[in-house]
């Protein structure tokens, strides 16, 4: 059974809305706020505590009177009927199971359409053209004929008019705040006690995340410093996390690299959430690193070698030599690829010198005969070139190279290049 309270006090709408909600919450934790002047809640669990449906209705009315609410109460076996009864009646109206159709029979069809706004109003005009005025008239029509003429909308309206449509309460989920802040009793200069407090705050936040089936996409930290400007950092995670230990470790690594510079008097932690990563691991798929553990590992390595030196290489769409950028690695599980005969060939690869080694190159007959650079010194015994390469002539990043493959008498093969505008020779790399 459901109870609906509908307020007729339009003058003070916002206060009435709060009062209705407060009254409903006194009887049930799950309340549907249908609109600003109507709330619905389940009263079935109250039967053992308050007695019969009439006693429950009188208790609701008594508490509403105590709150000085001008409202009407409808009680029925389903949500829609309870709402229609509350909007129809003056005072309290109770429809016991089996009585719904008779109690709804004299309600005008306009009220039915005001009840559910999803139905097109042209259907109401059609019903009026048929000479129908009340719910009782609509309920008397045969269902199959109504379906043929109005489709599913007709069936839906007829079920409401009969008071037989069952649906669950549309309970609005409470808004969860993913923010924690703390005012410290005295300024903290050291990182360790601060991390202890962060750990507690992150533990609470992660518990909230898991209760809502969410994960953190971004962590925003604001520190109010003693006698200095506010310190802020934003940690974005390639894979959403919901483990407080991993988040704390990432925060620690960041703060160790970028310390606040003054004592902390207040902090605020805020998370932006997203759907957590859900992966169905295959029994025969190769294992991959755990995403949260890998993020911590990559953050540690980034602390060693620099953030710009860790990641997955991605080739850029250009002919420029050695054009790439580093991105986050793809941690999805992939099934093994089909066997490709081309993968069974050993390909000759290049080992680059970064930056390219400046070289002195002796030229004879327009071809290099001797190469001298740091760690590379020898007479050319075989050569291939020049291979011209140029591009981006329209921008300041223009390049123009003449490349040679040379075999030196030290037994190694190198790729050397002449940078044409500057007329500088470099050793690009070694074939290895």
């Amino acid at each position: 059974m459901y109870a609906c309270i509908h307020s007729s006090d339009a003058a003070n709408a916002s206060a009435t809305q709060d009062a209705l909600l407060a009254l409903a919450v006194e009887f049930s934790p799950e309340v549907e706020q249908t609109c600003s002047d109507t709330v619905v809640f389940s009263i079935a669990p109250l039967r053992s505590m308050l007695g019969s449906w009439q006693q429950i209705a009188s208790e609701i009315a008594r508490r509403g009177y105590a709150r000085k609410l001008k409202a009407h109460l409808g009680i029925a076996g389903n949500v829609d009927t309870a709402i229609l009864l509350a909007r129809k009646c003056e005072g309290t109206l109770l429809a016991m199971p089996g009585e719904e159709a008779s109690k709804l029979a004299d309600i005008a069809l306009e009220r039915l359409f005001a009840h559910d706004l999803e139905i097109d109003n042209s259907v109401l005009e059609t019903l009026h053209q048929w000479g129908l005025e009340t719910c009782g008239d609509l309920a008397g029509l045969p269902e199959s004929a109504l379906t043929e003429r109005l489709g599913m909308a007709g069936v839906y309206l007829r079920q409401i008019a009969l008071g037989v449509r069952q649906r669950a309460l549309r309970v609005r989920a409470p808004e969860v705040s993913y923010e924690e802040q703390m005012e410290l009793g005295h300024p903290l200069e050291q990182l360790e006690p601060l991390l202890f407090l962060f750990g507690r705050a992150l533990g609470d936040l992660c518990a909230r995340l898991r209760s809502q089936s969410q994960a953190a996409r971004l962590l925003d930290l604001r520190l109010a410093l003693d006698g200095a400007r506010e310190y802020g950092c934003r940690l974005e995670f390639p894979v959403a996390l919901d483990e407080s230990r991993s988040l704390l470790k990432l925060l620690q690594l960041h703060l160790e690299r970028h310390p606040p510079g003054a004592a902390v008097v207040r902090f605020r932690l805020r998370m932006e959430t997203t759907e957590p990563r859900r992966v169905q691991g295959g029994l025969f798929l190769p294992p991959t690193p755990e995403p949260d553990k890998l993020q911590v590992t990559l953050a540690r390595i980034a602390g060693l070698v620099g953030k710009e030196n860790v990641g997955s290489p991605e080739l850029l769409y250009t002919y420029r030599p050695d054009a790439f950028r580093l991105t986050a690695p793809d941690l999805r599980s992939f099934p093994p690829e089909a066997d490709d005969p081309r993968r069974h060939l050993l390909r000759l690869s290049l080992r680059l010198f970064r930056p390219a080694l400046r070289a002195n190159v002796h030229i004879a007959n327009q071809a290099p005969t001797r190469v001298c650079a740091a760690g590379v010194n020898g007479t050319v015994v075989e050569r291939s070139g020049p291979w011209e390469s140029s591009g981006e002539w329209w921008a300041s990043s223009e390049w123009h190279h003449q490349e040679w493959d040379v075999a030196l008498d030290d037994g190694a093969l190198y790729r050397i290049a002449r940078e044409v505008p500057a007329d500088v020779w470099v050793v690009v790399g070694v074939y290895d």
Partner: protein
Amino acid sequence: MANTAQLSPFAKPVRFRSEILPKFPALRIPAVPLLRRGISRGGITEITGPRSSGRMSVLLHILAQATARGEICAVVDTNDQFHPASAAAAGVKLARLVWVRCRGNTEHAMRAADLLLHAGGFGVVILDLCEVNRKVLNRIPLSYWHRFRRAIEQTPTVLLVCSSSAQTKGCWHHLQLQLQHPRWEGKPPFCLLQGLDIAGRSCKPVESAVQRLSLERTA
């Protein structure tokens, strides 16, 4: 056998490392006859040789096999010499590769490799120590190799160490490569480098036979 006969029938027989059955199937490397049984997982494999001996080509081939199986791999590049375009041409799936550029700092390279191995879940981790000064290599504490070995044993991870001379202690495979001769097409001055012929020898397990490998240049 005589000693075994004198033991009590209830004595637990000693199992040597070679008798322990591998927990994970080996990583198959079809193009390298020296590794015809594949690379054993949970151990260190070392590839050594001078410049142009095909070390990088063999490494990229192994990476290509591992990433094609769907494994996540890592390259710890001490001297920042990894060439992504060559890797892509060799068939490596770059999206499944973590590249750590250490810019010549060997200590950072060793620590990065340590962190990656302890994170777990990687198929192949490559530690590239080529072109590192011999004096610096000699200063690497031996305890690192022991630590690496303990970190990956009983895991499906392979640690591949590449350098100009043998570094690791207790590796399972050790391949020594040597350039035989480059293959040129055409006559001077219109030559074209077609590939390299290299000779490989397995130093561990010891095999006297020298295998010839052919590296083809990508079209």
